């Protein structure tokens, strides 16, 4: 009898255990069961060339591929002044003439203003909050300075940047020169207010957006720690922003301050603000003072707007390289040990979406928590954006960062491209990241190189 009881108890325990196993989420599979190269899960592609950010996610249907291709064409297309038979609607005020001019090879670009390959723009506002809690536009300039115009119109201002060197010395005596930017706004179309707030920003890479849009809000919130309950010096909170497409406050995911909630809004706002091309989401020209006088708004057909949104939504993530390299593996450990991974979260999961199998329920490695963190005064722009203070930025995804030299020729890092190397980018970290940065300074030269090698493998 006694044996019988034990036997049944064992069976019951075994049954419970097996049910438990059946219900287990993929998260609890052992780490070794996953291929660490699959940065975007199923939406990963293997290409080391300059085109490594420019591939569609695997498994698109023939029709979806067609829409992706269409979006790709429009993404690369230079637009021209209205009225024109084709690709009409550029300006009258704009920052650049096509998406690809700033997002070079679907990645980052060049930290300059007003040139044909410039990827920089200057967001502006005056103190306070608008009706939705967002930044208040500058009278006559709006929320962004358009520093170029079609002929016959005047750019809102000229913007220039110059750099001063700043020396960082490691405890072991070696040194690095950081490039400290100074921005100047000249020849403004209207007088600049005394309390003008400015935020220089460089165009970020656009791949993997479909995956990030599908990370559930609960997953983002699970990593937030606004009151630093665990006393590790790292807070992290989401941005909540007004979304004109849904007309609701939503969690912010895109933009360098997570100030945009949905991809369609991001794409539509880039068309209208950066290129002066009106669309159904933003049907007004970007300047109130210098309209084009034409009654052609919205200038961009919805089918094209949606195709471009679809294009960035379905751009795959490049695979990691050299994942078995000893130095890379050591660097990954230091990355964890000195606390980088607390914000640059290696792993997130996307929600189920039956429409896109490659984006659905994926285990991805974006190295971001999509949260806002205080990055210290050196990186601060001093311009609040919804819940983001003037010192806070969204943790930048690190996937693909090792490929920037290939996709961009000369790579630049951080929100305004001030860092010319991954090492410089690390050394700029402050605020909540100060402890990790200081631990990085304490590492030996070989250990620091291992961290860099790890980043280059992303």
């Amino acid at each position, binding site marked *: 009898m006694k044996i019988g009881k034990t036997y049944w108890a064992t069976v019951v325990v075994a049954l419970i255990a097996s049910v438990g196993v059946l219900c287990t989420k993929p998260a609890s599979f052992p780490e070794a069961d996953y291929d660490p190269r699959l940065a975007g899960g199923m939406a990963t592609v293997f290409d080391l060339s300059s085109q490594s950010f420019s591939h569609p996610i695997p498994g698109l249907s023939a029709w979806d591929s067609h829409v992706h*291709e269409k979006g790709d064409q429009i993404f690369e297309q230079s637009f021209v002044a209205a009225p024109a038979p084709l690709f009409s609607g550029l300006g009258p005020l704009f920052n650049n003439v096509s998406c690809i001019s700033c997002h070079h090879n679907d990645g980052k670009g060049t930290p300059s203003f007003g040139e044909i390959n410039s990827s920089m723009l200057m967001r502006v506002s005056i103190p306070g909050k608008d009706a939705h809690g967002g930044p208040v536009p500058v009278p006559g300039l709006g929320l962004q300075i358009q520093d170029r115009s079609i002929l016959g119109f005047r750019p809102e201002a000229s913007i220039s940047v110059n750099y001063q060197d700043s020396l960082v010395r490691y405890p072991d005596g070696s040194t690095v020169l950081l490039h400290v930017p100074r921005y100047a706004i000249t020849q403004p179309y209207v007088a600049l207010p005394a309390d003008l707030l400015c935020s220089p920003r460089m165009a970020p890479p656009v791949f993997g957006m479909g995956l990030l849009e599908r990370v559930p809000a609960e997953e983002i919130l699970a990593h937030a720690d606004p009151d630093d309950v665990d006393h590790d010096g790292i807070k992290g909170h989401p941005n909540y922003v007004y979304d004109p497409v849904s007309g609701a406050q939503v969690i912010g995911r895109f933009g360098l301050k997570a100030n945009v909630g949905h991809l369609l809004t991001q794409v539509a706002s880039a068309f209208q603000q950066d290129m002066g091309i009106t669309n159904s989401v933003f049907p007004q020209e970007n300047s109130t003072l210098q309209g084009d006088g034409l009654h052609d708004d919205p200038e961009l057909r919805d089918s094209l707007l949606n195709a471009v949104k679809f294009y960035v939504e379905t751009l795959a993530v490049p695979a990691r390289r050299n994942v078995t390299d000893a130095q890379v593996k050591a660097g990954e450990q230091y990355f964890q040990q000195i606390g980088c991974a607390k914000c640059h979260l290696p792993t997130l999961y996307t929600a189920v979406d039956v429409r896109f199998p490659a984006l659905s329920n994926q285990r991805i490695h974006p190295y971001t928590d999509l949260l806002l963190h205080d990055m210290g005064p050196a990186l601060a722009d001093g311009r609040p954006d919804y819940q983001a203070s003037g010192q806070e930025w969204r943790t930048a995804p690190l996937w693909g960062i090792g490929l920037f030299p290939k996709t961009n020729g000369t790579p630049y890092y951080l929100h305004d491209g001030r860092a010319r190397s991954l090492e410089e980018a690390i050394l700029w970290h402050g605020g909540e990241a100060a402890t990790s940065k200081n631990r990085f300074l304490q590492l030996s030269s070989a250990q620091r190189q291992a961290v860099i090698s790890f980043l280059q493998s992303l």
Partner: protein
Amino acid sequence: MESLSIRLVSLMIGFAVCACTLSGCKKDEENHIINQPALEQQVLDDFVHVVAIPQYAALHAHADSLQQTVNAFMQSPSDLLLQEARNRWRLLRQTWEQCEGFLLGPVEDDEYDPRMDTWPVDYVQMDSLLASNVPLTLQTVQQLDLALRGFHPVEYLLWGKDGNKTAADFTDRQKQYLAALVADLEQNTAQLYQSWISEGGNFAATVIQAGQGSTRYLSRLEAFQAITGAVAGICDEVGNGKIAEPFTRRDSLITESPFSHNSMQDFKNNIIGAQQVYLGDYAGTDGKGLTDLVTLHNVALDNQIRQQFTRAIQSLQQVTLPFEQAIYLQRTQLSRAMEALADLENTLSDDLQTYLQQYVKD
């Protein structure tokens, strides 16, 4: 005991035989490996010195000669000189489209393509520019938007909207604009050439030193993948973009060189440029190309690629009308060309890339 030791001996003999066989195989493989790296290096060297740099040199030479003709036309405008300028534009265009067979390096990093080859032409801004008092110099033209610079505004000025412009039709402002645009082209092609040669930006070294200190290509495999990606990319762009888009929409407004009716030539030259990279040949010089690398282990694949190149170029030649008319009147021929380009592109981006991954081990 005896039987056990016999078994042991026979086992040992067996191992020895196996080991011999294995080392024999290995030696054979090593022989291949000893020759292959040298060939791989030669392919990279010839891509740079036989194909890329001579083509960029030719590109600059053609831009220079177009500029001279336009300057002569400025001095004494005549229909003869106008015709000469158009011919030289076509020659320049031919070389440029062939150079598009390898869109990698400075041409991509430093935006030479958009600076020289943006379309469509921005009629509104061009008209307001010509009607304005803005001085039309090289310096001012280089400040203009991309759609107001490069091949297509030059084409528009040389041919006019309907392709029947005469020397007498040119206004002074148009002539000044043309001269400045051509000077801009000349400067861009000079800089592009400079960016490759060792006395200039030396992108040549970046390719040649792949796997040996190149910051861009950490292995020769990476360089080959980049070159193959560029070759496949242009086939894709011609088939799925430049032809497919106007063809599907039956819209002759969205063709690339509409004023000179040069589009079919453009397409053909793109594929010839890609073919030159694959073969490692240019202007009568027979260098080592990817073809030689593929022949090492897969003759059938090499045959297939070479045949598909030939078929793609021939199928483009079957289109006898200007593209603007062919999209209405020669749809069968265009369909066949698109099919041939798709086949070629698939083989390059799937089979050739797989082959490289399998066999280039550096």
